[in-house]
């Protein structure tokens, strides 16, 4: 079998994190509010509207993007006043974080700003579900990442492979940290990659599968970087994938379960998500490719005995479609799944009513996935767009 080697492409964009930009944004908006109130105008923020109604799929860049609908948050409006106050509170907090060079988690940001408003029994924030959306509002309003405002999410996911990472004063090789690899932090803005000795990055849905590949020495043999997402990819992981692709030219190949949830994880990495549509430019990687699992794999590798039934009621049955079936039908309508290959996979899933997990490949043998399945498909370019 002829080996088609995957090569790193040329970098497309430069890493550009500038704390001054965030401070400038904060200052501009706060001064405008102050000017308005001085002149007796009702001060307001213009915040891009969240939700499905304000996102669209940009065919050209193949990204989910945010539309230009704005919602106006006034001070002098009973329905807005509280959020208006919260917005300013978080802005002041971000200013302190960024100018002092400190980072805080979403939860810390919530607790740091929660207190009882003097003379009332009301808290500035009652719940983290109040502060998180305000932080998202600021991201959309300023067009900067939450991480650039020094507010981070919980870390999830890890990488393993021959790549040198510089994190602050530390520098290390991600293939020499033991079998656990390097855990991806909540923010990867300050990370640099002085040395990269891999040909591509393999993004793996489950930690179990990533561990299997590391044990089989797949990264070394195939010159690949393993990125475990552990379910839906966190922002840190998505940002890392984006940076590795655009700043370092690494091809991205995604390996998930063969079910609607796995395919959705792929779609989020590739096109971005509705929730974070305003960050697609920084998080999504439309050039990513999909290696598996596919429905075709079942026939091709004789895995009929290790499939599982889809959950829910099929569309042709009474009460259907629900559960997995409904999800598949939704995905069939996504603009980025509008191609023959994907439609075929989704159709087959509906037809057979089955799903297949990555681990099902262990039915062949423990080494099968590392020695046959992945090298064969990747080197043959047998990938889905």
């Amino acid at each position, binding site marked *: 079998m002829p080996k088609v080697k995957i090569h790193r492409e040329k970098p497309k964009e430069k890493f550009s994190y500038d704390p001054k930009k965030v401070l400038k944004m*904060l*200052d501009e908006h*706060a*001064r405008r*509010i*102050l000017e308005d*109130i*001085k002149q*007796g105008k*009702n001060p307001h923020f213009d915040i891009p*509207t969240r939700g499905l109604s304000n996102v669209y799929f940009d065919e050209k860049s193949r990204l989910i993007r945010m539309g230009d609908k704005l*919602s*106006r*948050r*006034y*001070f*002098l*409006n*009973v*329905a*807005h*006043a*509280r*959020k*208006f*106050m919260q917005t*300013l*509170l978080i*802005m*002041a907090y971000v*200013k*302190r974080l960024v100018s002092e060079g400190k980072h805080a988690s979403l939860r810390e940001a919530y607790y740091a700003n929660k207190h009882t*408003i*003097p*003379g*009332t029994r*009301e808290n*500035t924030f009652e719940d983290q579900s109040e502060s998180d959306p305000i932080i998202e509002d600021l991201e959309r309003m300023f067009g900067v990442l939450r991480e650039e405002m020094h507010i981070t999410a919980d870390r999830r996911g890890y990488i393993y492979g021959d790549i040198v990472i510089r994190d602050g004063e530390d520098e290390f090789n991600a293939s020499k940290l033991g079998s656990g690899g390097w855990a991806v932090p909540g923010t990867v803005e300050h990370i640099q990659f002085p040395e990269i000795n891999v040909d591509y990055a393999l993004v793996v849905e489950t930690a179990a599968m990533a561990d299997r590949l590391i044990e089989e020495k797949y990264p070394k043999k195939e010159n690949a970087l393993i990125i475990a997402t552990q379910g839906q990819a966190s922002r840190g992981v998505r940002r890392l994938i984006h940076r590795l692709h655009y700043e370092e030219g690494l091809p991205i190949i995604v390996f998930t379960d063969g079910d609607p949830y796995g395919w959705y994880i792929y779609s989020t990495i590739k096109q971005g998500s509705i929730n974070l549509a305003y960050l697609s430019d920084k998080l999504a990687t439309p050039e990513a490719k999909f290696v598996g699992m596919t429905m075709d794999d079942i026939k091709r590798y004789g895995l009929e005995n290790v499939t599982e039934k889809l959950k829910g009621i099929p569309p042709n049955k009474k009460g259907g479609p629900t559960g997995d079936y409904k999800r598949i039908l939704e995905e069939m309508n996504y603009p980025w799944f509008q191609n023959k290959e994907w439609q075929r996979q989704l159709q087959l899933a509906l037809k057979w009513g089955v799903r297949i997990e990555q681990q099902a490949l262990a039915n062949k043998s423990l080494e099968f996935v590392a020695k046959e399945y992945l090298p064969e498909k990747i080197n043959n370019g047998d990938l889905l767009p």
Partner: protein
Amino acid sequence: MAEANQLFREFKIQSVSEFFRRNAAMLGYTGKVRSLTTLVHEAVTNSLDACEEAGIPPYVRVEIEELGDEHYKVVVEDNGPGIPEKYITHVFGKMLAGTKAHRNIQSRGQQGIGISGAVMFAQITSGKATRVITSTGGDEIIEAWVKIDVDKNEGKIVKKEKHPNLKGWRGTRIELEVKNVKYMRSKQGVYWYLKLTAIANPHAHIELIEPDGKLIVFPRSSDYIPEPPVEMKPHPKGVMTDDVYRLAKKTRKNTVRRFLIGEFSRISDKKVDELIEYIAALRLIKTVKDKKLQEQYYQRLMEGDVKSVLRAFKGYTKVVKQVAKLMEKPPEKLTWHEAEEIVEAFKYMKFLAPPTHGLRPIGEENIEKGLKGILKPEFVTAVTRPPKVYSGGIPFQVEVGIAYGGEIPAGFDLYRYANRVPLLFDAGSCVTTQAARSIDWKRYKIDDLDRAPLVLMINVVSVHVPYTGTGKQSIASVDEIYNEIRLAIMDAARRLQTYLSGKHRRLAQVKRRKTFEKYVPEIARALSILTGEPEEKIREYFIRFIESRFTAVEAEDVPVEEVAENA
């Protein structure tokens, strides 16, 4: 008292007191609580009437002293004109005697039975005489113990003393000792009765000392003393054969024609000529055998076509002349049948609406004063409707007052009055209750009537209030009265609604303003961190901004701009 004496010729004297002695319930003496209330009512009514007729602002003091189990002394004292010595037995001893009996006049009392009924009730329960202390302001005070001789229907003074009137006191104090009654602070007891009386009589100062020694004062809230009611002649549409027949016997006029013109309202010489034609026509129609034809004549008569009806009969002029002759005979010769003919003819004729000058409503201003003074509400309004007529000839007038909030506890209360007298019993069958309940209160911003701090008072004023029973505690459901009450309530309720919506708007405005103000310190601190300007200054900018927006809003009375965030 000539009038009464004359009247009493119609009755067997011995039976009057005797009858009521056996039927005390008819005078309101039923139940232990109600009997006491009735007793106090009679005495207080007399006091108020006496003061008003004398033009004195009433000061009435009621004292209830517990002497034993269901045994009380009731003292009622007033600052009225006092009673001349020779009238004492008449006032307290004789049933169906008094200054208002059987005159067509709006009155509080019950045709002269009231206080003598009370004296009788005290006498038959405790065996004691009623002590009367009175002075007309002269040199002496008379103290008399009065009893009723039931057989003779006469008052009897069993003991009398005279005292020098050193301080020039004037007024009447009566003390009744009664048994088989009970003092309770219920909605049918004395306290409640006096409270309602005070509301409807804001010109009166009323005090009550309860058996436990507690003094309750319902102070005067108006200086205006209502004019005493004037007598009104009956309207032809409102009389029955018996009225005409009896009045004809009593009149001093010497012909039927003059009697009709003199003793009834809205009857002129011309009307009597018309009456002659109608009576003649009715007599002729009665001779017609064909029922259908007869119906047609009645119909035409009803339409006022009396002349053409007459012409339809041969020799009608003869009948007209006969009837005309009847009008010239002395009234005492009027037969029952003739009186019947006159009343029947009245039904077909048209008359001007009865005069209403005899009606004495409380008046909007005084209702408001009364409600405000006693209930201390936050809002009060009153409506006095123009007089109307029911049953074709009985004038009446409806007044309504609404008091809302303030010291009024939650829960709807209806205060019913007939000629200013509180009605405490039989609320369920009363037209006022029906009318009040028929209102869609939600339309007037009262979402839950039974929990609203709302008092509705209704006063029905008339020479003849159509009570449902002998107790005179419930007004019959007469369409005209029902409709007038409804209109009055709706009118008053609209004003309440205006008040309430204004209040809601102001409250909402204050609340809204507070919402903004409470965030200002937080906003100022954050903006100070962000811009470096002093916190204090930023706070001032915001407060000033809120201030300007809200004063502008109050001037225009429109809500602050409200834009949904996603608009």
